[in-house]
């Protein structure tokens, strides 16, 4: 068991992927790693793949970036326990047939992942125009929960309503759900859009996200992983940490740093700059998470 732990920690260094490591949580991590407890694991977050996107100035390799990301995950020295896609699997289209074709292609490409426990979530590009109808045909429920090695995961849907609300029904579901969990239970919330007002001027918010955060507040160990903003971002609302992941199609500027929320153009000198995915080492006992940002290898 401790050998596994060492290997897991080494993969970040050894896989030649580098990447910054961001520790979430305060103390006890080193302790937990040494003990090599069974409630340690790691998973991979991929986000905003926008399969079907076409914009040569933004990503001339759009047809292969997702495949390279799949290969990169397959190349990780240690297999993650599972992989989660936090929305915008496909790029939007008004054509319901084309939407389904993109979803089928996306599903085919990610079926090449060696790890078979793959969780999906919708983004507005997948689900807003038909309220998640096509998405559900391909990927199942819009919101759900699951347990993994002592951590309770809750995947929220703030996109199938085109107005980016969770909605009363889902908030009620969340409230009921949380009632069954102890106040100390390690909880990971997955979402596509930020649940807090990250930058409302660019619509980086969820209309009723504050209601979800309010429901989560009494729980001591809550961490949120989300996508949508196409960049790494870390924020806290009270004791709850929110971590945005990079996109796998193009980066967006830092909140408010540009006149427009427009994609950052492709850099010939540095292909794949600003895009990538993330690994998350979880220690359920201490409800701590260690994040590593991993690039998509070029070529």
């Amino acid at each position, binding site marked *: 068991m401790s050998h596994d732990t060492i290997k897991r920690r080494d993969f970040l260094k050894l896989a030649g992927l580098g990447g910054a490591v961001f520790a979430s949580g305060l103390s006890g991590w080193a302790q937990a790693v040494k003990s090599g407890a069974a409630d340690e694991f790691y998973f991979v977050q991929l986000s905003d793949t926008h399969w079907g996107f076409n914009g040569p100035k933004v990503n001339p390799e759009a047809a292969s970036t997702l495949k390279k990301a799949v290969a990169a995950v397959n190349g990780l020295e240690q297999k993650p326990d599972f992989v989660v896609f936090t929305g915008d699997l496909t790029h939007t*289209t*008004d054509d319901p047939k084309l939407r389904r074709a993109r979803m089928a292609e996306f599903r085919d490409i990610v079926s090449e992942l060696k790890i078979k426990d793959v969780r999906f979530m919708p983004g*507005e590009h997948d689900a807003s125009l038909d309220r998640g109808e096509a998405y559900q045909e391909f990927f199942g429920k819009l919101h759900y929960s699951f347990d993994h090695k002592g951590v309770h995961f809750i995947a929220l849907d703030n996109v199938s309503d*085109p*107005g*980016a609300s969770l909605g009363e029904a889902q908030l009620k579901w969340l409230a009921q759900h949380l009632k069954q969990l102890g106040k100390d239970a390690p909880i990971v919330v997955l979402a596509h859009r930020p649940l807090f007002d990250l930058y409302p*001027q660019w619509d980086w918010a969820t209309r009723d996200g504050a209601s979800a955060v309010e429901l989560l507040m009494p729980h001591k160990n809550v961490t949120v992983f989300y996508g949508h903003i196409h960049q790494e971002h870390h924020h806290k609302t009270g004791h709850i940490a929110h971590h945005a992941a990079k996109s796998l199609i193009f980066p967006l500027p830092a909140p408010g740093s540009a006149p427009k929320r*427009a994609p950052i153009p492709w850099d010939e000198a540095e292909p794949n700059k600003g895009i990538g995915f993330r690994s998350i080492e979880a220690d359920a006992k201490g409800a701590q998470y260690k994040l590593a940002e991993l690039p998509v290898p070029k070529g």
Partner: protein
Amino acid sequence: MRPLLSRRCAPAAICAALALAGLHASSAADEPVIRVTARKFEYDTPEIILKKGVPVTIELTSLDRVHGFNLPDFKTRADAIPGMVTRVRIVPDKAGTFAFFCDVFCGDGHEEMAGKIVVKD
């Protein structure tokens, strides 16, 4: 550029200019009204110029589908719905340039659907 709003538009020429810009005086409250029509993926009035301290009513509608009108700096949002007029009152109590945008996902181009309100002293 759009003409500055004024509470009155006595000379006919100015009235006409305001009408062209989608402005006319509301008879009820004597407050300026600005018509904003949304469609994929733009507003027909992407730049609205207001005068600080002069409240206005925005009359929103849409030509194709539901869009949004969100003006976070004034904590204001509304839907623009085909065949309907939605009224939003804005009290421009601060000068500056403030973005508004569509916050109802409307397709490939939604993210570019935005405009600005310029409040002049």
